[in-house]
């Protein structure tokens, strides 16, 4: 079985999953902006790559992702709109904005353009898939390392505390609105970068890419937690990346066994997430079942005596 492609996909999508991790786990805010910002990153990157600047394209996608997150943050903090609704509103706005970026095109081809992947093609000579995977690996390691370090700094700590106990953050004289916006900006910047990288890798921009992508991000986070447990933020970041890779390996395996046609992809994703999420509940149920069995047996013994 081809392991390289799923691992490469897993790595590229893991950056998006890290963005979801930041908003969903660290900030404790369900953020649906992701579905819009991933396409925004892809769109901005596609247009700038077509103009011949692949690296500037990646940088620009980070900036616009941050702006999208900031917008959601302002809706939540200044206009006091419900968090889920704020994310949906930004996501909806981005549907149109993405078309503005591409000049109305739903699809943009990057087949002849220079990208970060074509540049690093010769890292592993004679093997394009392996080069692509190594490129993805390097980028993922850099992003993860930056995030791990960031959340050990004072601003990072403040963002973590905001998700934990907002009142306490205000009592420590930190502007909780600001930290929320910052967290959302950073999360969506990661998501947009992920979209940009995927766009460059598949050499194609697709406006419908974002639909249902939040669940993939959540799947990665939750699979990671099921494997590594919920511990520190550092472990969480690493486990999310690995969770993303595991997820894509599972999907590849399922595809190999011809388990479902290509349109069954999203249903398969949802089922995987449900199974991963239900691990703790099933474990508890099993423990309870054992206790009940034991109690019943001891009751029988007492009767006979």
């Amino acid at each position, binding site marked *: 079985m081809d392991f390289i492609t799923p691992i490469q996909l897993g790595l590229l999508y893991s950056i998006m999953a890290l963005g979801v991790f930041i908003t969903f786990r660290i900030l404790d805010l369900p953020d649906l902006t992701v579905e819009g910002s991933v396409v925004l990153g892809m769109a901005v990157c596609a247009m700038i790559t077509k103009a011949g600047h692949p690296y500037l394209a990646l940088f620009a996608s980070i900036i616009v992702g941050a702006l999208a997150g900031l917008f959601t943050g302002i809706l939540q903090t200044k206009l006091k709109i419900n968090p889920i609704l704020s994310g949906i509103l930004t996501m909806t706005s981005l549907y149109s904005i993405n078309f503005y970026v591409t000049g109305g095109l739903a699809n943009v081809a990057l087949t002849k353009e220079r990208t970060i992947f074509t540049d690093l093609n010769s890292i592993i000579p004679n093997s394009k898939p392996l080069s692509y995977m190594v490129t993805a690996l390097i980028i993922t390691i850099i992003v993860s390392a930056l995030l791990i370090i960031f959340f050990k700094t*004072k601003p990072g700590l403040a963002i973590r505390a905001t998700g*934990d106990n907002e*009142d306490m*953050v205000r009592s420590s*004289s930190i502007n*909780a609105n600001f930290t929320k916006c910052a967290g959302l900006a950073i999360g969506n910047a990661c998501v947009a970068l992920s979209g940009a990288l995927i766009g460059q890798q598949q050499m194609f921009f697709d406006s419908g890419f974002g639909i249902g992508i939040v669940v993939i991000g959540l799947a990665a986070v939750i699979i990671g937690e099921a494997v590594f447990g919920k511990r520190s933020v550092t472990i969480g970041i690493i486990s999310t990346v690995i969770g993303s890779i595991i997820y894509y390996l599972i999907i590849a395996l399922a595809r190999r066994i011809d388990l479902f046609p290509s349109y069954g992809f999203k249903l398969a994703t949802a089922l995987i997430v449900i199974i991963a999420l239900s691990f703790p509940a099933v474990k508890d149920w099993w423990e309870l079942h054992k206790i009940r069995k034991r109690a019943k047996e001891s009751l029988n013994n007492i009767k006979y005596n």
Partner: protein
Amino acid sequence: MLKLIDVNKTFYPNTANEKKALQSINLTLKKGDFVTIVGSNGAGKSTLFNTICGNFLIDKGGIFLDGENITVMPDYKRSYNIGRIFQDPMKGTAPGMTIEENLCLAYTRKAKRSFFALNRRDYKLFYELLKSLDLGLEDRMKVKVGQLSGGQRQAVSLLMSTISSPKLLLLDEHTAALDPKTAEKVLQITNKLVDEKNITTMMITHNINSALKMGNRILVMDEGKIVLDISGEEKSKMTQDELLNLYSQKSRKQFSNDRTLFSANDENI
């Protein structure tokens, strides 16, 4: 240090639920004053704290901290100089983060600039501070605060609010949720920290003994007004019974004022 001038706050004005929470409160605290506040439920004690902290804005009047007008300042800006501890041990700390990280956050605004939040210099300071609490917490700095008991969390909260040497410390029944022995320990720690740094403190309590024993001044509130203000010698000599007598005297005086008001109305009719 703290000056409240003609502070008024009414909730739901002009409706059936109207509650005059604070009525013309005038209060002056000198630096180093330790004021205990007692009063029945609904007297306005927590509301007073809320207005000082900026959780909501007052209808009329002015609030001044160390000469600075903070009447309309937002809450997180005021908390640069005001520390507050709540009755609920869960409220003052971030449960998912370690003791070290919590202390670091509380110290954020006043600490020296550094890249990493947890560094050796601050670590030493936190270790010494935790050691002085005498609760064994200095060996558990990497434990998540959510795993500590209520008393330990309140002790950490106390440390967090005093570590940045605030100008004013507000204690809102902070031992009410603790068992008597732990409450005593937390009160000891309170006294120690407040004395060391000479922090102006206000403490709400339902325990009249504590209120009389601690601090140099006692306020009794009723119906949004301060009805008794006793300090110094008079306070240290006062017993619980004397205080209760004085309180019912003052309340009765008010009661008779209402009576006269009603009878006056009757005559007019």
